[in-house]
């Protein structure tokens, strides 16, 4: 049976492979792969802390050191109004969610590239890799909350009752984080040098987000535009308001930010599913 002579140069157009991507089917696949997500999540945690002498303390040390540096230098150099709140508390409550965001994005962006060999072995929905990276970064964030507890003790300060809004704020933050991680992790496969650009952007983000300062330092007229461009800003500011200042979130800024965040999640997921078809070809 010889057929090679009759083969055209290119396949007829009607034969082209088209992949149909349905959100429902993707969600079902993801649910079936939950055991693997869990194993990956555990693997990341174990691998991260197994070799480290101080173990889980590494989750809490970076934001803590950063807070000390900020307190010593920034606070003394530029006097930032904190509304009577001790500056370490003022900055740390924003540093915890920021550290989660920035390490989830930088870790998540590499999650596909570093897992290409596993991916070429067996089919699993590709989104398990960024998702498990974000989850394991979340554990770090939980651990670094201990630092907040210590600060509460030191300044004999109790979180305000408005802290009930924290889960909502976290949901918005998670949506934005996952969305950006989906976008970055799939783009990095095709454009490896985006990784370097990203670390610069994240460094800028530290200053472009109200972490060292309150959002009230931004002129009133620009705040809405600011929140739309940096949807994380009202969220980080929200944490500070509800936990420390005892105020409700600034709804006028938070709602637009929530809309943008969920839009980023949906678009990010669609882009990811669109690009994942070619992941293995690049590897």
């Amino acid at each position: 049976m010889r057929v090679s002579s009759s083969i055209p140069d290119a396949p007829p157009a009607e034969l082209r492979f088209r992949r149909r991507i349905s959100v429902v089917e993707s969600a079902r696949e993801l649910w079936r792969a939950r055991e693997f997500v869990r194993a990956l999540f555990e693997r990341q945690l174990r691998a991260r802390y197994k070799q480290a002498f101080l173990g889980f303390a590494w989750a809490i040390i970076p934001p803590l050191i950063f807070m000390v540096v900020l307190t010593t230098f920034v606070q003394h150099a530029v006097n930032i109004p904190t509304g009577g709140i001790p500056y370490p508390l003022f900055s740390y409550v924003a540093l915890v969610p920021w550290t989660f965001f920035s390490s989830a994005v930088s870790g998540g962006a590499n999650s596909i590239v570093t897992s290409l060999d596993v991916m070429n072995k067996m089919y699993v929905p590709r989104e398990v890799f960024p998702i498990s990276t974000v989850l394991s970064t979340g554990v770090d964030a939980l651990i670094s909350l201990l630092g907040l507890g210590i600060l509460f003790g030191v300044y004999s300060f109790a979180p305000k009752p408005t802290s009930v809004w924290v889960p909502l704020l976290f949901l918005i933050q998670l949506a934005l984080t996952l969305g950006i991680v989906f976008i970055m992790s799939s783009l990095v496969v095709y454009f490896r040098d985006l990784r370097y650009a990203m670390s610069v952007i994240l460094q800028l983000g530290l200053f472009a987000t109200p972490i060292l300062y309150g959002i009230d330092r931004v002129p009133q007229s620009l705040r809405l535009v600011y929140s739309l461009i940096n949807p994380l800003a009202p969220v980080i500011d929200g944490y500070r308001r509800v936990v420390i200042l005892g105020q409700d979130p600034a709804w006028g800024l938070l709602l637009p930010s929530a809309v943008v965040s969920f839009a980023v999640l949906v678009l990010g997921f669609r882009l990811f599913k669109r690009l994942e078809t070619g992941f293995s070809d690049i590897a």
Partner: protein
Amino acid sequence: MRRGGIVVDRVWKRFRADRRRTLLRDELERLMARLHDEQRGWTWALRDVSFTAEPGDSIGIVGRNGSGKTTLLRLLAGVMYPYAGRVELYGKLGTLINMSAGLHPDLTGQENIYIQGSLIGLKRKEIARRFDEIVAFAELENAIRRQVKFYSSGMMLRLGFSTAAFLDPDVLLVDEVLAAGDAAFQQKCLDRTRDKILSGTTLVFVSHDLQSVEGMCRKGIWLRDGVIEAAGSVREAVGEYRDWVEKLEIGYRERLRRDGTARIVKMQVTGPEGNGSRSGELLEIRAVVESPESTEGALYMGVSEGPSRPIFVLQHDISLRHGETEARCVIPHLPLPRGRFYVWVGFFGKSGQEYLPWQPATEFDVSGPDLHPTPQGIVRLAPVQVPTAWEVGPP
């Protein structure tokens, strides 16, 4: 289609032909190139490939390096998508592809088993239930709590295979992965794979070891530059591939020929009464060697199937005279099946001096019956025809 079936329908797959670097700059260049000509910068890895497998089939895929075998396997595994055409695979899939990939060096063997197990879809409880079996099969009892980065490559392979081997897939894809293990473990893996076929699993087997393919599979596909060149029974497909490879190897044999002080003047292989050689009958090999001096030494004659698969070597102490010497070797009952074989010759002095380097000298065809058929999955069969007399009856 029932569980275990495979449909591959007119599949095309292409890759970038350029450096494959993926920096922003490269992608921009490609974008510009694409505006001019859509097909440029791509090469086809597979063209118009179609085949189907029924549940329980065993298909061997052969071909040279770069002919698209691994790409086809990856398409079947669902980790790659075709450019055109349709790939469908029914039932639970097991793959033995690239087995030490995905092992995490900082974690212990035990932790890696759980990760690998969950990757192929096993529940935590199921893995725990089979854990001892997996460790025993991998022969890693003493090392399972050690970090994988301290494993040898053979240990990693064993860990990978054992984890994959203990699920019950409907379709099993096996790439050339066993080559790294030692002989005993390879045999164990092949036995395990054979058990799977016998219990009704569909097998797709990619290998350069044509013997394993012939032993393991009933159907064969020969891929050549991404195109199915031959498909059918494993003997037909692999046979055609072997013939084609042998034609390529003629040039290779010429290059193998080396000079020594002595040289072959004439080489003749004849069957009974000067006719062609036949299985089980007399064969005579005549070699005329010319030497510039008279020497004592050992004459070696070997027979191989293809240039690279030796079957037997004969040795005889002789003395070469100044000038030409004729050596005749008679094999009363030729123990070879039908096929094409090569004769190798060498002459070495008492203390190992190389007078006539070991080299292929000629080839001959044997007519006669094929080898007796073997039960499926018995591999590593040597192409030797043994004369037999059978008696069957009450003891």
